[in-house]
């Protein structure tokens, strides 16, 4: 074999090893979670309460916790991000737009654990005193912090897709006597919907995949939350908390179910984005 072929083989091997790691994480979760996935525990696992004292290891509350916290944070972050993106891409004077863009990029450099740290000592007491109900460690608190965490993700993608709208469309609107708001509503937003959906899905994935913020400020109680001021536990936080349990116990095996669920949910999001861009005609995905 020539040297060139050898190197090509080596490069292929590297790609294969990297690709296989994706598969092996999945396979590992399935194999280790098998005892609790089979054995008739499956429906109980997804719909039951978490009560190790009574030998019940359901992760219903954590699923609900993950979903409510991540969707609520999206609810806060989406308008915020859309408004900021519009300002950066359409409305603001050049200087302001540049400054805001820099700020947003700067935000991506802030470590998650720093958000959580400030959250505990600044936001939690405020939420506690502001509302009569609850300890301040709540779904709301986590969602607010997560909203700040995921906003840059959305803004950068939104701005990027706004700027990809062909200049000629905008000139056409201007020629018809349209204002910049006309451009925004009738051209820019309709043209960049794939980017907006991509940003939304990616941000949702980040919110759902984040561990530290919910672990630090959501209180981690195992009951089903009744309101957004209730404390709650996410799938990610649950893994972080129960990791210290006996490795061979059913309690621990339930973690692999949590891991699998998170894996599947984020994978589905990847597939959604890829197919979206395939349909929107963007190559290379």
């Amino acid at each position, binding site marked *: 074999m020539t040297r060139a072929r050898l190197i090509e083989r080596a490069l292929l091997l590297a790609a294969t090893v990297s690709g296989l790691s994706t598969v092996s994480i999945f396979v590992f979760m399935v194999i280790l979670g098998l005892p609790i996935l089979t054995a008739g525990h499956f429906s109980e696992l997804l719909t039951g309460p978490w009560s190790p*004292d009574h030998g019940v290891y359901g992760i219903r509350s954590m699923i609900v916790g993950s979903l409510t916290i991540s969707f609520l944070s999206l609810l806060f972050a989406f308008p915020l991000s859309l408004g900021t993106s519009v300002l950066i891409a359409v409305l603001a004077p050049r200087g302001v737009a540049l400054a805001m863009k820099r700020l947003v990029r700067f935000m991506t450099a802030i470590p998650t654990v720093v958000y959580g740290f400030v959250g*505990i000592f600044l936001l939690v007491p405020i939420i506690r005193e502001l509302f*009569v109900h*609850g300890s301040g460690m709540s779904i709301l608190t986590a969602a607010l912090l997560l909203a700040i965490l995921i906003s840059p993700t959305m803004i950068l993608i939104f701005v990027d897709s706004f700027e990809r709208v062909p200049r000629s469309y905008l000139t056409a609107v201007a020629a018809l006597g349209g204002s910049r708001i006309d451009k925004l509503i009738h051209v820019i937003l309709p043209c960049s919907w794939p980017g907006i959906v991509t940003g939304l899905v990616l941000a949702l994935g980040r919110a759902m995949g984040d561990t530290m913020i919910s672990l630090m400020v959501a209180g*981690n*109680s195992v*009951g089903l939350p009744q309101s957004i001021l209730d404390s709650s536990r996410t799938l990610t936080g649950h893994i972080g*908390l129960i990791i210290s*349990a006996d*490795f061979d116990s059913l309690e621990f095996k339930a973690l692999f179910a949590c891991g699998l669920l998170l894996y599947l949910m984020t994978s589905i999001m990847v597939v959604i984005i890829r197919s979206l861009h395939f349909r929107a005609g963007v190559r290379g995905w």
Partner: protein
Amino acid sequence: MIQKLRQNTITAITLLVVGLLSVAAPTMADSLTPFQGETGTIKVSGGTAHIPVMKEAAKRIMTFNPEIRITIAGGGSGVGIKQVGEGLVDIGNSGRKAKDTEIAKYNLKMCKWAIDGVAVVVNPRNQVTSLTSAQLRDIYSGKVRNWQALGGADKPITVFTRDNSSGTRAVFWKKALAKGDITDRAHFVVSNGAMKAAVSQDPYAIGYVSVGYIDSSVTPMALDGVVPTLDNIKAGHYKIARGLYSNTRGEPSGLAKKLLDYLLSPEGQAIVADKGFIPVQ
């Protein structure tokens, strides 16, 4: 002038050093000499009540002989027992006795080096400072949800608890709650330190910690009229008490044995007392 000042300083320092040495040397030498010339790592994990004592002991040993490394991780008693049994660590701490099944499965040897109580604590701003066992059970089962019902402010109670690997929880659940239910609305924290920090931040919180952790940031509750002081625990008046254990797989040997011996030495037991626990010797 400057010369003289410097000389004075030097004399003062020399005196100080000599003085310190003459006071500290005998006890230091006795307790720490076994570590002389040793090298290696001791891995410790498990019970979080143990950590202040373990940290201080580790600091003194590592200062005495920098060739020795001691890593200390928490996780809770369940973790300590499990990890030492599996050979993941050299010493697994637990705030409860290992179960017979655990002892048999892993051939555990227990070393008890302190006695500790588990105290119910609230925020210093809380006016309620005493509870009956029945009231405590009602709070933890979620039956009583407002401090007003107990003579406090009209504020919802934030219940804090620990996860199942906690020995503190096991003792509290058995001896204070009589194995009653714990509400699923309870907030979870991962260690004694975290419990103290959480209760000290939330004016309406209630939680339970190792007595050694109590300081001015939390108020211990009198339970059925008995305040969880070291004296009351020693005298047997305060019932929610337990030993602090360090477990090894098989008879302790090497550095692990030396660490356990050190904890039982006069200096080790002085650390135990200093950190707010009751020495066993």
